[in-house]
């Protein structure tokens, strides 16, 4: 690098490093430190692992942690199943203008606030809502049915929120698959199923992986959907963090939970990237 370029580069980097250091690195270190202390009395703290001990021995905390992880995996799998045909149609069946319109139709719901979309689901699913009264009208039910505040409603909400993040990477990878390869598969005697399994899915794998990582992370870290659509016993790990912080003002335990979530999510992303030999930058771009 020329001296002048180097000075320019340092000028470019300094404010960024300061900003990121102050607002990303320091707060996380701070969070880690807070999680590693125990309140002895007012204003007096002592370093200890008590928070983690509490988090890992209390059955409620541990169950919520495990449940959130399992439900997020399930949400990711369902999202993949729902999004794949849509992505396939957009990438391979639709042509020209129709393709653009369909893609745009997928984008719009993503830009509309998550809050608004979740509220739409509440109107559909609640006891006095549309589906309940429709079922009574048709005769499927003889009294109002409450479909809100349970795991199924929450799952619908999670899949809905994440769908776009699965569709976009899938469309991108499927578009690069040459149609003649699929034709060749059929000509060589393959049926729809074997062509899908042996040609289309292997080709779409990078898209599947990045879609799954993003959707899993979004589900794991989601706060809004579990709070609004989930029931009393479908407590989400993020809700627990929020409660410790805002409702109970137990920062130490809240910070420990936060750190556990951070470690779990980083470990899973790292593992999946390792497994597929991709970098984070490629996956997110």
């Amino acid at each position, binding site marked *: 690098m020329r001296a*002048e370029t180097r000075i*320019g*580069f340092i000028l*470019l*980097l300094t404010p*960024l490093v300061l900003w*990121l250091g102050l*607002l*990303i690195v*320091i*707060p*996380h270190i*701070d*969070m880690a430190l807070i999680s590693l202390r125990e309140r002895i009395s007012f204003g007096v703290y002592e370093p200890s692992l008590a928070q983690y001990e509490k988090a890992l021995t209390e059955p409620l905390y541990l169950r919520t942690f495990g449940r959130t992880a399992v439900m997020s995996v399930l949400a990711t799998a369902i999202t993949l199943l*729902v999004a794949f*045909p*849509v992505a*396939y*149609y957009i990438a391979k*069946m639709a042509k020209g203008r129709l393709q*653009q319109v369909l893609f*745009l*139709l*997928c*984008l*719009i*719901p993503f*830009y509309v606030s998550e*809050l608004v*979309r979740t*509220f*739409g*689901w*509440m*109107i*559909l699913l*609640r006891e006095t*809502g*549309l589906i309940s009264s429709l079922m009574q009208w048709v005769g499927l039910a003889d009294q109002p049915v409450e479909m809100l505040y349970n795991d199924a409603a929450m799952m619908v909400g999670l899949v809905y929120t994440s769908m776009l993040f699965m569709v976009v990477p899938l469309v991108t990878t499927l578009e690069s698959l040459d*149609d003649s390869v*699929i034709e060749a598969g*059929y000509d060589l005697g393959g049926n*729809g199923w074997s062509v899908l399994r042996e040609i289309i899915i292997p080709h779409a794998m990078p898209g599947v992986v990045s879609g799954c990582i993003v959707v899993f*992370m979004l589900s794991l*870290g989601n*706060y*809004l959907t579990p709070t*609004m659509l989930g029931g009393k016993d479908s407590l989400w790990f*993020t809700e627990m963090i929020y409660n410790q912080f*805002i409702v109970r003002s137990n*920062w130490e335990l*809240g*910070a420990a939970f*936060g750190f556990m*979530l951070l470690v779990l*999510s980083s470990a899973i992303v790292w593992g999946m990237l390792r497994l597929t030999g991709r970098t*984070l*930058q490629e996956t*997110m*771009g």
Partner: protein
Amino acid sequence: MKRFSWFNATALSFGFAFLYIPMIVLVVYSFNESRLVTVWAGFSTKWYAELFRDQAFLDAAWVTLRVAFFSSTIATVLGTMAAHAIVRAGRFPGRTLFSGMIYAPLVMPEVITGLSLLLLFIGLGIDRGVLTVVLAHTTFAMCYVSVVVSSRLATFDTALEEAARDLGATPFQAFRLVTLPIIAPAVISGWLLAFTLSLDDLVIASFTTGPGATTLPIKIFSAVRLGVSPQINALSTLLIVAVSVGVITASLVTKRNAVRRAREERAADQLA
């Protein structure tokens, strides 16, 4: 792929119905005279009138717009700088750490970003309010901006910048006069993305806000938790319409630019 199957068509319609029914329901019922979802009592715009008379909502909307404008603008400047550093600088000590810091908030749960910033603001003794929400939103939005801009920069022909430098431009002049006009569409879409993310955000804002700085999502969230409120239907409809108009316009503009660029490139080829 010419093989058309009913399975695919059904799956597609199911997928789109799934995406759109909740929003259509909101729009339709925002014009319902009755407070109840199950009763259609005739067309009415009274919930809109009521919404615009509600000072708390108007205040929240004003806070939200200010936060979104300032945070997305700062995030665009910082995000573009970060993208430039990552794409252009090649290898430098700490590059992996630096890009890790840039991309971390993309995959980190919002709750963690929110609470770590809350701890920071409390630790520094900063009063929470509009300023803290702007700082928080800028931090998480700049990552998205830098992703959008760096994907454009990666396909950018550096020879143009080098030519400007050889002709005596300073690095900053070369950036302002050559690079920026070319990457402008990506910078603008980065700004739009940052703006929308800030408008939408509930979690980070609830952690970092203070009294007097209630944003619209926080207001909607508490209203929804209290029960049915047709005003929220009206507000949601307005948001849906605004966003749809924005997204469609943006895509038309991008498409027109692409067509124009293709025509110009053809013309340039003919001259050569």
